[in-house]
């Protein structure tokens, strides 16, 4: 393999990692507050189309990212009202959100098929971002740096701030948090909205950076991989970053299997690899039984205050 090919492959890995890292971080915060939102895939698609649409109208990809965050968060509120206000089943409601987001994004997206959007300008000087070697560090869209930056920021928020402590308390023991005066429902609304916004930006990375155009169902199940990632990471931000890159490498395998001389197996084998390995990774992590200790105690359970 030539150096050029290695650099191209590394950049592909980073690109494939970014959406699942963003969506995974969002879901991690949501789950830390005790809410399991299976609607990640739907929120990513809503973010993908919202970001794309805003960019088409404003020619400004930065506004597009804001639009994506808003689109993802707005769709997550449908889920939030149902599970927080009406105590509906979180698993089924999350699924409904995915089905809804898939359908609605396709409907909205119809008028955007075939349109293109202006790319982000690199935050770094062209000497670095276009440099044949240094582009492997400096040559990405700002969303990539945002995603990486959000890893320590999320960790800091969860473990070093008062708000993060309250959020974890709500996820660990909702009744205690309620009895000392914190708004369980309020905290969970915020956590779900954050999860939606992050998934939305993750989705927009597909429509605004990777392709960059709109196609229905373009996130192709990555929302589910993001969900698996949170379990895989044992609800820890550092491990989430490592896990996201692990899956990014697996996904890149499909694209580079031929070039790397892996054509001894059919291309479908490499395409199935990320999903197969997700199952394998979940099995290894779950079999060790250590992640259970770190799982938020109230995850997925409805909160019914006794008064």
């Amino acid at each position, binding site marked *: 393999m030539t150096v050029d090919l290695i650099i191209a492959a590394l950049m592909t890995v980073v690109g494939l990692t970014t959406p699942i890292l963003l969506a995974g971080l969002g879901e991690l915060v949501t789950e830390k507050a005790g809410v399991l939102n*299976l609607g990640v895939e739907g929120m990513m698609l809503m973010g993908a189309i919202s970001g794309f649409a805003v960019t088409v109208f404003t020619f400004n990809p930065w506004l597009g990212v804001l639009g994506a965050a808003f689109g993802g968060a707005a769709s997550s509120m*449908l889920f939030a009202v*149902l599970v927080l206000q*009406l*105590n*509906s*089943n979180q*698993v*089924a*409601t999350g*699924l*409904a*959100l995915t*089905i*809804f987001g*898939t*359908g*609605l994004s*396709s*409907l909205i997206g*119809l008028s955007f098929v075939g349109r293109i959007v202006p790319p982000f300008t690199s935050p770094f000087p062209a000497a670095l971002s276009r440099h044949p070697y240094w582009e492997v560090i400096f040559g990405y869209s700002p969303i990539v740096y945002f995603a990486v930056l959000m890893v320590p920021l999320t960790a800091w928020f969860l473990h070093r701030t008062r708000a993060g402590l309250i959020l974890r308390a709500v996820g660990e023991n909702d009744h205690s948090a309620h009895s000392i005066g914190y708004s369980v429902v309020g905290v969970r609304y915020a956590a779900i909205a954050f999860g939606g916004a992050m998934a939305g930006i993750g989705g927009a990375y597909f429509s605004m950076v990777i392709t960059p155009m709109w196609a*229905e169902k373009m996130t192709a*199940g990555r929302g*589910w991989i993001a*969900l*698996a990632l949170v*379990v895989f990471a044992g609800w820890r931000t550092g491990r989430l970053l490592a896990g996201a890159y692990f899956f990014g490498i697996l996904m890149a395998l499909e694209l580079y299997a031929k070039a790397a001389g892996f054509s001894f197996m*059919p291309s*479908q*084998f490499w*395409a*199935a690899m990320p*999903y*197969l390995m*997700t*199952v394998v990774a*979940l*099995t290894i992590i*779950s*079999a060790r*039984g250590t992640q*259970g200790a770190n799982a938020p105690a109230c995850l997925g359970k409805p909160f019914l205050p006794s008064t």
Partner: protein
Amino acid sequence: MRLKLEKRQEPSMAMLIATPILAVVATMFIGMIVFDFLGIDGFRAVIDIFLTPLLASYKWQDVAVKAAPLIIIALGLSVGNRAQVWNIGAEGQYIIGALAAAGVGIAFGPVGGFFVILLMIIAGMIGGSAWAAVPAVLRTRFNVNEILSSLMLTYVAAQVLSYMVGGPWKDPNGRNFPATAPLTEAQSLPIVVPGTTIHLGVLIALILPFVFWLVMSRAVFGYQVRVVGSSPQAARHGGFDSRRTIISTLMIGGAMAGLAGALEFTGALKAINLGFPSGYGFSAIIVSFLGRLHPIGCLIAGIVLAVTYVGGQVAQTTVHIPNATAGIFQAMMLFLILASDILIRYRVRFVPSAKPQAVAGE
């Protein structure tokens, strides 16, 4: 005035039945408003999606053929959902079921007839339940979340399909198009209503709900599933093995999805191509909830969903709405049914808001 929720002594049977109907009606109204907002004739769209397939008799066969796989898959999923086991990979089990049936058909070459077709269908059920056995064993042995593993295997199943129909099982006379050779008459399910497309699978979908009803209400297994779902601790005290319940409910779900795949292949489509997975496995989840996890409910809800599929196609040509619209309606129904769940266990009361006049000590 403000809303107050009062817990009911007993879950309301009336609400259990009324809320799915309310959900469908509310979906129609909301759909009308949303479509008008989007610049589409909402009234016409809703009429075409929900009523035209029922009123136009020539659409009935399409509804019946579409409802069959939805009902069969939903029956299996409802058993799991009752035990709080979440199999969302029915789509993959459906694919593997169809492939297993195709494998048997190809192995018999030109030979067909009753026993070959029966073998194909049994192979479909075994294939589907084998695919579901993976998340089942992973869940019970290693505590792996079955939601994620069953869904991941759906993507794997799609790649298996892509490999088989593009490679070993590709039709040699198919102009290089990735698809299996179409089934001969001798390997296809018989048509039960002459002059229509209504095949034996539709009849099976009509009978199975009653079989499931009998088993779930009369047999110990049905009771065991309900106990494990509502109170795992009580199940343990009662001597019910929750592991076995998890494995059996997942494998029943897989067998039913595999059966649906085999019937769809041998009865309706006759060949498997890349477009074979059409989302029945996911829509069946909605059917199962809309049918309140009850076998007869699944039968009715399966027909309702099939109507929206067929009606969606009608509306595509009449008011030019995209294919995805039926999916939005289906999701809306699921949202509304989940939202109305609270009415079963709670009573909504309007109470005069007690004005907090001079609350001391606050």
